[in-house]
């Protein structure tokens, strides 16, 4: 069988239920992120504290995870976010999710709270809650090595000391650098006394039409490998984006006081620290670096958020810090954003040494930042304040968060300064989990040489051929959101998704071939295209249930009020009136009310899914 089971673990009662999932539900949402969001919407009561036992934590693999489908090693972890109070959801690669499926499960839902430190062990159709006393207190690498030593070739999703100590942006890690980084899912693990999910399995995923899948993937591999972008991603990985963005002034620098930084962080420099390029499960692209400083990475995100954004001048210091953040189990994007936020507030005199406990904050201060990262993960001194993330705004004397680069309480994920690239701005303003490029990153906006007719055909509308206008960009963002949500449901990587890094790659036609080869369904193009919008609407409903309003679909104050100071982007900012109009148009494209609400008939339709 292609599909696996659903394990529902009540940690408070120590009760485990194993359930089948209906085919109708799978046809409506496929798997991965879609299922996770659906269960959250149905299971998380209104108004709960995300760190209370009432929160629900879901680990869900995608529809094609663990198959021959390329880059299909992914899963989503979801809960109400302790960092934002809204939708918590994070997508991660590596080898854990395929192993979870080989162990017999598509998805685990954790409810309640374990009495003592525990881990979940999953093997060939069975789930156990086990004692984790011996593993508590270990960082993300040591704990995984300990599990391998004790249990053999297992794959794990773990939280680090940051998760144990309830840092609101603690991540989930599998392997050395693969992270379910965003929205504090490691913190929710800690709050439930769960150190790890450990999986080991031998149950193969049966494919309905093996020959068809072999043929489709062989053709798809040729197509992916022929692209110009694939060998670049496979040799330098995401750091290639740094130079591209820096060239026109699109790199977040010193808490967005600047918008461009040093060439010392270019991919050609990063390459000097690469020992070998490696892959996640089933991936042809191999974009991960094994670095010479003992870890993996850095990704573009680390170069920006733990590099330019905190004014680092030495690449080596940036890589060391991202290795440290990875070991402790913190989210790179949030950590780098909060450090930059506090540093600017200190430099501006809004906070002083009384608040920081004697720490003198300044950009490019590697020693202090390293110490502070450690203090955050252990909630010591000033680290305890920063561990609260955006909720520390009052204590940091910035109650309206005017200096924080965040949306819906989530620090912006990527290093893009979006004042120039208006579609990127609309995307992070409306994304269901806060300021995040992985929901809708419209990369084609900065493919300046892409012929307009190609662009229009992809987005299915007449698109303004200019990144600096918000006109027509509602179509770009909405189209991107839908297809990225779909590929998240399949458990495949956005790196090979049509429109993410390239105008080519896996579009709905390729997805359809893979789905039907794997499942034996006669799934149609219309059915497939309905999945993304359904997921987006369900996430909107979850957020609205937890207090989200139109006012939350906005941008950091700086992006509106402070024009970019450097390079081509100089003078560009987001105009408030233009933005308000774009938001109205976006809601219309989504079929929402002018207040950004999902309409009643649509709610009824979504409630009927079973």
């Amino acid at each position, binding site marked *: 069988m292609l599909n696996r089971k659903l394990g529902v673990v009540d940690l408070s009662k120590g009760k485990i239920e194993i359930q089948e999932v209906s085919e109708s539900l799978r046809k409506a949402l496929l798997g991965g992120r879609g299922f996770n969001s659906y269960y959250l919407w149905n299971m998380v009561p209104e108004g709960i504290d995300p760190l209370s036992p009432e929160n629900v934590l879901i680990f869900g693999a995608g529809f094609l995870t*663990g*198959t*021959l489908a*390329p880059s299909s090693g992914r899963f989503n972890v979801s809960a109400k976010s302790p960092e934002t109070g809204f939708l918590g959801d994070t997508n991660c690669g590596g080898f854990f999710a*395929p192993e979870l499926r*080989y162990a017999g499960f598509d998805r685990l839902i954790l409810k309640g709270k374990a009495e003592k430190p525990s881990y979940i062990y999953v093997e060939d159709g069975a789930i156990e809650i086990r004692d984790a006393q011996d593993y508590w207190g270990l960082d993300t*690498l040591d704990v*995984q*090595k300990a599990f*391998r030593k004790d249990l053999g070739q297992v794959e794990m999703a773990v939280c680090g000391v940051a998760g144990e100590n309830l840092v609101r942006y603690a991540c989930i890690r599998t*392997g*050395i650098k693969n992270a379910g980084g965003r929205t504090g899912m490691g913190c929710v693990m800690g709050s439930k006394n769960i150190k790890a999910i450990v999986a080991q399995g*031998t*149950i*193969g*995923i*049966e*494919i309905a039409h*093996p020959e068809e*899948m*072999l043929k489709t*993937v*062989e053709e798809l*591999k040729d197509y992916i*490998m022929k692209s110009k972008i694939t060998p670049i991603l*496979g040799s330098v990985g995401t750091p290639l984006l740094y130079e591209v963005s820096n060239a026109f002034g699109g790199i977040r620098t010193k808490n967005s006081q600047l918008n461009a930084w040093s060439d010392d962080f270019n991919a050609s420099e990063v390459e000097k620290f690469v*020992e*070998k*390029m*490696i*892959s*996640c*499960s*089933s*991936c*042809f*692209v*191999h974009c991960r670096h*094994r670095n010479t400083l003992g870890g*993996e990475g850095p990704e573009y995100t680390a170069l920006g958020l733990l590099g330019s954004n905190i004014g680092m001048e030495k690449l080596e210091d940036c890589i060391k810090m991202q290795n440290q953040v990875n070991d402790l189990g913190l989210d790179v994007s949030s950590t780098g954003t909060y450090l930059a936020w506090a540093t600017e507030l200190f430099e501006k005199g809004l906070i002083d040494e009384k608040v920081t406990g004697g720490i003198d904050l300044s950009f490019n201060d590697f020693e202090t930042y390293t110490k502070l990262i450690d203090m955050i993960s252990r909630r010591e001194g000033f680290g305890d304040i920063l561990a609260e993330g955006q909720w520390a705004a009052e204590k940091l004397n910035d109650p309206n968060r005017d200096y924080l680069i965040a949306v819906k309480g989530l620090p912006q994920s990527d290093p893009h300064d979006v004042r120039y690239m208006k579609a990127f701005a609309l995307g992070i303003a409306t994304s269901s989990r806060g300021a995040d490029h992985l929901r809708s990153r419209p990369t084609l906006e900065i493919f300046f040489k892409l012929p307009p007719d190609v662009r229009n055909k992809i987005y299915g509308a007449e698109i303004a051929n200019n990144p600096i206008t918000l006109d027509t960009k509602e179509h770009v963002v909405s189209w991107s959101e839908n297809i990225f949500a779909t590929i998240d449901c399949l458990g495949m990587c956005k790196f090979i998704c049509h429109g993410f890094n390239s105008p080519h790659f896996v579009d709905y036609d390729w997805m359809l071939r893979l789905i039907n080869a794997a499942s034996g369904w006669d799934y149609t193009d219309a059915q497939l295209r309905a999945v993304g919008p359904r997921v987006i609407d369900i996430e909107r409903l979850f957020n609205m249930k937890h207090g989200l309003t139109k006012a939350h679909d906005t941008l950091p104050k700086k992006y509106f009020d402070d024009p970019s100071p450097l390079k081509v982007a100089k003078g560009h900012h987001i105009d408030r009136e233009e933005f308000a109009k774009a938001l109205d148009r976006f809601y219309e494209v989504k079929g929402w009310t002018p207040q950004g609400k999902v309409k009643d008939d649509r709610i009824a339709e979504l409630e009927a899914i079973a």
Partner: protein
Amino acid sequence: MKYLFTYPEKCTGCRQCSISCALNKLGECNPKKGAINVLRDEFERYEIQFVCLHCEDPECVLVCMKSAITKGEDGIVRVDKEKCIGCRMCVVACPYGAITSFEGDIIKCDLCDGEPVCIKYCSTEAVVYEEENEELMDRRKELAKVILKKE
């Protein structure tokens, strides 16, 4: 003869070789049932493939009590499923860890009778199917020594 030659230094650890092998032979995606296997450990920082070398004088043939394993005239070492009783002696005897078993079924590479599927799904040419020559065979001997040391 043509053999599969592996290059661990090029292997990214994705396991598409194993998954395609199991899908082709058994109709399921399962890297653990591939006749080519990737042993990987991100913490110890290595990726290395294990696959049958179709030895000149195979240990597995020698130990098989049922004469279920034979080396054909084409040089390919094959398991006869009818004769095999699943005793796993070949699994134990293979010095290169290239034979595995699941619930009594022996899993071993037969080069897909000369058209190996796995190579089509490797994006870095970390496993290739080539006519033997001195250089390739020397390289393979060196690699075999590494595997023997690991065992």
